[in-house]
Structures are given as structure tokens and as C-alpha cells.
């Protein structure tokens, strides 16, 4: 069963369409990495899932419930962390925990204590005195302590140092695995997400370009390194649609392809007959992210080269 289902969701800020006909599903227990450049619509999508915004068209369900009709019981099972979420700054962390705990039947005090220790948060300091990173850690603590079934995180690694990030990623992986949490996380921190995610979605300018399991992703997105395809080397006049990025730095040409499932280096020799060596490997999230973001620019560049 899908923990998150979205069908044809559209959202507008006045005349700007932030999301256009977005549809996706996140299976229960999955860690879903929602990627996209700034302004792609990731935050809006997460806010819709958290019930903070109402879609102008389409529908979204979390844990089987329409997001516009989330009740108290549903919200007890959803954790939401976002950069810029306004925690009550006048409270100390201890007071905030005491305020929130009665709202959740499954509030885990020992987990809260452990997270506070792990994050090195002073429970008696007012939240308004926290640094940006501490603020985010406090928000995470408040989201994780109720042991939610669905965790929505928007840029959760903001302001965190490498050690805490690493700890958090591992902690999340552990919890998601052992407790069956579903995690939807939007972040620019691709290196941290890569080991965490088992599903990935890519939004650009309000459009969902892809949404698939990491297994499928890794199988079809490949990085192809062509050596020997120098200045004198012939270059294909037209490139296949599945080539997202073509970078030429003589004597090398680097490709990111989206349809590389099952293809080895020989499959690309028809385009580069003069190549001395062609290597194919899995593309990283970062490589695909950059390729998708720059695909229009790269397409123009390729056209220029080909001409």
C-alpha cells in the first residue's frame, strides 16, 4: 500500500503555477528523496502533504487519508520538519516537549532524551536562542519523538555539521528500516540522500520529471565516459533523446543517459567509432540532478557542437 499518493495535483501562487499536474506514489516504508532545483515546487508539495496547503486541482492522500481532511489521529502519525518552520521561540526545548507530549499517545520520552543528547541540545535554553542548525535539530526531535509512520522533511540537513548529518542519516535509515517509517525528504544535500533514499522523484519548474525506485534509477541512469573522442573525432549530428548531458573536454566526452539499462560500452560505439575506450557506470544522484537541471542548456550546446 502506498503511504503517499498524489494524482494530478496543481497549485498556484496567484498566477504562478508552482505545481503542474503532479502525480506520484510513495510505497509504505520507503525513503523517498524529492529532488529539484530552487523553486521547483518541492516545498509546496511537502506542504500539501502536510495539509498546510490545499491543491487547486487533483488530490493527495497520506496514509490513505485525503490531505484536506486530515484529523487529529492522522496528524499523530505524521511528522513534519521544514526549514523555516516557526517553533515557539519563547519556550525552552523542555517546555516544548512537555507541551507536545500530551498531544501524542506514542510520544517516546526516551527517544526524545536520546535525540536531545545526540544533537547536543540544551533543554533549558529558549528556542529563540538556538542557532539555525540547533533549531532544525529541535524540529527534528519534535517530529521523531512521536514515532510517526510518515515523516515529511524539507531540507532537514540545513545548518547541521557533517557528524550530526551522518548520525541523522544513519538513525533515520535504522528507524525507517526497523519501524517501517515512510520518509519523504526534500533536500539539496544529494550526497546525504544517496545512501538514504530507496525512491527518488525529480521536480523541475512544478513538473515531475521522474519518480521511481533507486533500483530502477540506478539501472537506467548511467554515466558514459568516451575516451579518444577528441577534436578530430566525429561527433553524432543528432543525439538520442535519452542523453541528458553531453560534455566534451577533448579527448573525452562524458554522457549522462537515462536509458542505459542493460547497455555496456559497446552499445555506444556506433556514435563514437573512433573512441579508444568507452566506460559505463551508474550515475550518481548528483550527476543526474545536474544533468536534469542543465538539460536544456546542454541540448543547445550539443546542437552547437554537432553543427
Amino acid at each position, binding site marked *: 500500500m502506498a503511504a503517499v499518493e498524489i494524482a494530478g495535483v496543481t497549485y498556484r501562487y496567484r498566477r504562478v503555477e508552482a505545481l503542474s499536474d503532479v502525480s506520484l506514489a510513495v510505497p509504505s516504508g520507503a525513503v523517498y528523496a524529492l529532488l529539484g532545483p530552487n523553486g521547483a515546487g518541492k516545498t509546496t508539495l511537502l506542504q500539501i502533504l502536510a495539509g*498546510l496547503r490545499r491543491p487547486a486541482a487533483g488530490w493527495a492522500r497520506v496514509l490513505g487519508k485525503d490531505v484536506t481532511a486530515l484529523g487529529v489521529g492522522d496528524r499523530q502519525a505524521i511528522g513534519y520538519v521544514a526549514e523555516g518552520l*516557526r517553533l*515557539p521561540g519563547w519556550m525552552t526545548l523542555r517546555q516544548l516537549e512537555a507541551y507536545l507530549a500530551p498531544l501524542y499517545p506514542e510520544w517516546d520520552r526516551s527517544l526524545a532524551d536520546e535525540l536531545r543528547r545526540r544533537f547536543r541540545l540544551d533543554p533549558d535554553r529558549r528556542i529563540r536562542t538556538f542557532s539555525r542548525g540547533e533549531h532544525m535539530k529541535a524540529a527534528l526531535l519534535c517530529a521523531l519523538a512521536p514515532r510517526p509512520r510518515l515523516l515529511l522533511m524539507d531540507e532537514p540537513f540545513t545548518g547541521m555539521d557533517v557528524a550530526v548529518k551522518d548520525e541523522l542519516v544513519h538513525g533515520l535509515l535504522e528507524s525507517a528500516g526497523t519501524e517501517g517509517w515512510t520518509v519523504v525528504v526534500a533536500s539539496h544535500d544529494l550526497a546525504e540522500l544517496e545512501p538514504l533514499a530507496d525512491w527518488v522523484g525529480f521536480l523541475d519548474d512544478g513538473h515531475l520529471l521522474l519518480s521511481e525506485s533507486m533500483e530502477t534509477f540506478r539501472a537506467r541512469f548511467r554515466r558514459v565516459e568516451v575516451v579518444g573522442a577528441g577534436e578530430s573525432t566525429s561527433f553524432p549530428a543528432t543525439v538520442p533523446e535519452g542523453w541528458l548531458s553531453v560534455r566534451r573536454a577533448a579527448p573525452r566526452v562524458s554522457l549522462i543517459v537515462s536509458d542505459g539499462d542493460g547497455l555496456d560500452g559497446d552499445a555506444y560505439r556506433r556514435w563514437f567509432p573512433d573512441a579508444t575506450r568507452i566506460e559505463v557506470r551508474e550515475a550518481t544522484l548528483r550527476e543526474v540532478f545536474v544533468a536534469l537541471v542543465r538539460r536544456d542548456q546542454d541540448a543547445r550546446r550539443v546542437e552547437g557542437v554537432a553543427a
Partner: protein
Amino acid sequence: MTWLRQAAHVAAKDLRHASWMLAVYAVIVAVATAVAVHAWGSGRGGVLLATLLVPFGLVVFAVVVQADAPMGSDVFWATRPLYPSAVFAAKVAVAAVALVGVGVAGQAVALSALGVESGSLPAHIARSVADYGAWLGVAGVVAGFARNIRTFVLSMIIVALAPYVGLWSLLPWLVWGPMVVRTLPTLEAGIAVALFGLVAYQYHTRDVRRSAVAAAMVVVAAMAAVGVAGRQPVPLPITMKDVPAGLRADLRVDSVAFEPLPRGEQELRLTLGVAGGASDLAYVLVNPRLEIREAGKPSERLDEVAGSVWLRTVDPLADDGFRRVGPRVPWLERDRTLRFRLSSSQMGRLSRGATLVLTGRIEVLEARQLQPQPLEIGRSFADDGVRIRIDSVEGSPEEPVIRVVQASVAPPGTAGSWVLHHNVSRFDVALADPGRREAVPLAGMATTFAAHAVVLPGVSVALEERRLQPMSSVPWTDLGDAGAESHRGTELRVVHWKPRGGFDVRSELRVRPGNG
């Protein structure tokens, strides 16, 4: 957690959050109450406190609302398992208990000190709650879409000033005409309910456009303006209660006279009285209007020169066994004449047989004799919303001047609505010497006026410093030795004329200039 427990949980959090502000607010209420109870001689202090109290209360409410802002995608509470209606209810509860409740408590104390009877207290307090509630409603809506307190304060200043600036520039007829009408508590209560409904809608919907909320506020304001605009101005407030039929009397025109004025104008003098009714009650015609009506022509209203006229009065001290000193008893000598200025064309219409239609409302007043008050400086006494303090006794035994400060509780509204108490509900005072069994009626001479709110908005107090001295036509009887000591043993006998209700009257008369 049940809905109710959630509401209490959030309210407790809000009380902790705004605790120091609420403490300051309570202090302001306490000081304002003390001013109303003790230091009511300085009306401006009361005005200052009232001016401070309400805006501060609105800011406190904004802080409470913004702690869990109803709108915005970054609000923490909305991501938590909280009923939006419980959060809204918590805000209303905090406002009701810590802001309105504390204010009402102060007001009740102040009004009680001013002698307001327990039966009248709920009406006064309801008035204030409606008035304050409407402002809190505005504050709630504005706080809902303002992102911080600074934006809230700026927005409130604009909201408070915009209607006046807008109406003055766009609809001056509305401002200069019906806008001077005092607003009704029911209208204010309606506005308050509508605005709080809007806040509740914000909490329920959350993802609502700010422009939509602003538009809704404009609609509420327009409805309020229409409600106010539809009412005719009433120069003097009246009691809304009608008296039973047995206490009603007929308006009687005793005489009609014309006096020439410069530029061909004439002054029409109508001496009025009442027929029937109760002999132990006073009858006062309030808000008289005179219209000239002529067949086939539009009626024409004449400007009245008096807001009220005492038609019949009685000497409430008639049976006290005291000898009245002087040739007249002024209470019985009140002028019963209404005066109207008529132009030559209006005189022409009357000559052609036009009818005069006199309308108004007669207020029926009951005399209540208060406990005799020894003539001591600083002594104060109160009765049903009016409190009198003896400030000084000066003058010679032959010409004593007693300075008193009178504080009269009156509903707000038009400037001068407190005139009600001076024109309709009033005091008559006599200086009596129980030893000699003599009493001299004193005439009240108004000198200065000030006014302040009694703790909360909605109900204000008119402060009037008066000098009481013998009527000029009344020869003074020596009451004792010279100086202030000479007044030892004398006492003030006070009669409070208290409105019991009223009834509308209408009288038609045909007069011909020249033949009466």
C-alpha cells in the same frame, strides 16, 4: 486528548506565553478602576488610561493569536495533532477571561462605586463587551494575516484610520449625516461575531488568501456602515423602554406665540404641558421635532433650539416638612417653552393654512430622594450611575457656593451623549437646615466638563464640575455663623430624577401668525 482538553492545553500555554503582558494589562485595569472609583475628578487621566488600555489589550490578543497564527504555511501548530477549532477556542477563551473578563471586573467595580444598580450593570457591561469584542475581532483578523506584531500594529493603525479617511473623502454625507448616530450594541455585537467568525474560518481553512480575508473585512465594514447609515440621528439618547399605558400622558400645547426677530424672521414659542399621566412623576419631552405640512407640498422641518423640555415636574421635597425659603420653588418653575426660528417663507406657509406637526418622545422620570448628606468637604455619595462629591464650600452665609463634582455614567456614542444625564436624568439639590426646618433650593451651574471611559470602552463617565448656589431669585436665609463653619449642621437634600421609560408623542396644530 479530547477537544476540550486540547483547548485548555493551548490556552494554558498562551497564558504562560503572554503572562507578563497580561500582568501589565491587569495593572492598567486596576489603575483605571482606581481612577474611576477614587480620582474621578481628573477626567483626562481616565481618558489616557482608556486610550492605553484597549490598544494594549488588542496587542496582547494579537500576540496570543500569532503564537499559533491561523494563516501561513510555516505555522508550527498546524503540523501538530491539534483541532483548529480547539486552537481558535483557546484564543477566544484567553481573550474572554484574561482581557475582557479582567476589564469587565474592573468596570463592574467602577460602576458599582458610581452607584450603578445591579440591575443596570449587565446592560452597561454588555455594551462594553460588544464594543471591545468588535475591536478584538478586528485585531484577531488582522493578527491572523499579519506576520508579526510590527505589521499588526501598522495594519491596525491603517484599519482604524482608513474608514474615516475614506468616508470623509468619498462619502461625506455618510460621515456628516447618519454616522453621528450612536452605534447600537446589537450592531457592535453582530460585527464582533462576524469578525470572530472570520478568524475561525482562517483557523479552519488556513490556506486562505490574505486578499480574501481583507475583502471579507471590507464586507463586514460595509455591512456595519449600512447598518449605521440606515438610522436617523437622535440628538439625545433616550431610554429604549416604553412605560405602561397607565403612566402615559397627552402632549398639550398651552400657548403659541410669535416674537419678531431681525431680517423678517419670527420666533415661534410653544409652551407645552401634559394632560393625564401620574401626578408624582416628571415628564420631559426629548428630541422634539416640528414640521410644516401643507397639502401637495413637501413637508419642511424646523430646527429645534432645545433638545428637551420639562413638561411637568413635582416638588419631591413637598412633604418633608421643611419650609421653602424664597418666593419660588425652582423645581416647579422650569421653562416649558420650545422655541423655533421661522423664515418669512415658512411664515407664509403657516398663513396659507399649513399644519404644524410636533413629534418627539416623552421620558417619564421618577424622583428618588437620597439620604440627606452632611455638608462636609470630600464627602461623596452615589446613586444609580451618578456620583457626587462635595469639593468645597465657599462664600458668605448669605451667598454660599458649593462646588461639587458630578460623575455620570452614560453610554457612549455621539459626542455629548452623556448630556442624557444632565437633560433627562438629573439631580436637584437643596441646602437644608434641619434645626430650623428650612431648605433653600440650589441651582446647579455647569462650569467645566470632562469625560473618561470606565475601564473598558463602551461605557464612559461624564465628569462635571458644578457650582451650586441659591437661585438668583431666591433670597438667602442665614443658616448660621460666618465662614465655612457657618454651614455646620446643614445638609444637602438630593433628589435624583431617574428615567423609567418613555413613549412617542405626536401633536398637530394649526396656527395663524398674528392671531395665535
